[in-house]
């Protein structure tokens, strides 16, 4: 590698580039695996330097003060309604980018994930192969990785539906053990007027349902979103499914679906 590029890599790692220079080298890094590896190693070296400084413990009482300060700002980051989805979608994308690069080598799929294909009038469900021994964090990263893999390549979904056996307009990927999942939707028209789309988890054996959140489909008519919802009480993972309904906007989240089903079905 030429010294000029090494110089730039060093300055980048030392945070001594202006924003324009940073953007330029980040573009190069994204296209140059050798440079990306060098930057990773240099970052490791800087980290080691910091870790070898004379060590001082942070004063007791600092964490509560920090939490007190960020607590006042939680309102600016509401974890509910549409914002919950949007924020988590960002997390999902950023985590998955990393996960695709880091975990794919070691694990194909984590245990117990389920994926439900959401077509206009039906739902197809598939359980994914199991890989034991992943921590909670690793499961989440694998879940996000898989969600994005299906988003980028719908043909990788473990089933086909719709005309000409093409993947349907949506899918839900869910980890029953953490109650976390992702839903990807395409070609869903923007909800009209006072209507909103809601995702539901259903026990197809008993018909019990639980609202999983509102899907903020905008003009783009597509998106990949995170959700967190526990299964209906007493429901085994093997009977779970998902569907999307169109509901009246306004007021509290509905406790049961009243509107028409627009994706999937409440039976499998």
């Amino acid at each position, binding site marked *: 590698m030429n010294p000029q590029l090494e110089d730039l890599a060093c300055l980048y790692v030392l945070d001594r580039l202006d924003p324009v220079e940073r953007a330029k080298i980040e573009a190069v890094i994204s296209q140059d695996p050798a440079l990306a590896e060098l930057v990773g190693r240099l970052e490791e070296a800087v980290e080691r330097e910091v870790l070898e400084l004379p060590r001082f413990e942070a004063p007791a009482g600092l*964490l509560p003060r920090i939490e007190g300060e960020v607590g006042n700002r939680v309102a600016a980051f509401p974890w509910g309604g549409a914002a919950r989805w949007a924020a988590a979608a960002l997390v999902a994308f950023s985590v998955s980018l990393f996960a695709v690069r880091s975990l794919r080598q070691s694990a194909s799929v984590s245990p117990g994930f389920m994926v439900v294909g959401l077509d206009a009038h039906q739902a197809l469900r598939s359980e994914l192969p199991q890989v034991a021994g992943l921590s909670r964090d690793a499961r989440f990263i694998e879940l996000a990785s898989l969600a994005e893999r299906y988003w980028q390549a719908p043909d990788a979904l473990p089933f086909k539906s719709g005309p000409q056996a093409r993947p349907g307009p949506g899918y839900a990927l869910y980890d029953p053990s953490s109650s976390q999942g992702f839903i990807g939707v395409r070609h869903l028209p923007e909800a009209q007027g006072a209507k909103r789309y809601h995702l539901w988890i259903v026990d197809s054996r008993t018909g019990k349902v639980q609202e999983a959140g509102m899907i903020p489909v905008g003009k783009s008519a597509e998106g990949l979103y995170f959700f967190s919802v526990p299964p209906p009480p007493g429901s085994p993972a093997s009977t779970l499914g998902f569907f999307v309904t169109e509901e009246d906007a306004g007021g509290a989240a509905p406790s049961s679906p009243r509107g028409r089903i627009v994706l999937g079905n409440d039976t499998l």
Partner: protein
Amino acid sequence: MPPPARPDSVIEEACLVARTGAGDRAAFRELYGRYSAPLFSLAVRMLGDAGEAEEAVQDAFVKIWRSASSFDPSRSRPFTWAVTLTRRTCIDRLRRRGRRPAPVALPSEEVLPSDAPDARVLAEGREDGERVTALLSGVSPNQRGALELALYTDMTQAEIARQLGQPVGTVKSWIRRGLMGLRTAISQYSP
């Protein structure tokens, strides 16, 4: 060439940052548990004042909380990202107060001759835990001094050059060679 696999701790920390970005307080506390001591130590090193370092670390963790949702793990390691936020916070404070901590004392010797003991030789006979430290000392004093000024102060490269009485090009070279030397040392002894 595929990107290098990252150790489990880096993956775990990327998850903690992601969960923090989603508003998970437990993940934030875990991150604090892992990072608070090294970041506080860094702030003490940069600011030279424990009270101000405490305020800087508080500011840095608030930034971590607020910007975790935009952290991009494909661009940097989580701890590097936290170090960068902390360094920027400390540098802002240094500039606001218009003074700097005592500069790093540099040895008077010139760059070590090229036949200086190889880093690997320096490490021989030491326990594993001491090897990296020994290796780091294999970086020449001038390279280390320039690197420390770049890492722990708000001085520009031109200011570092003036401080060291060297041309900017020489200082750039020292910083690069110092950092590359550390990288090589770590690469040789990483499992």
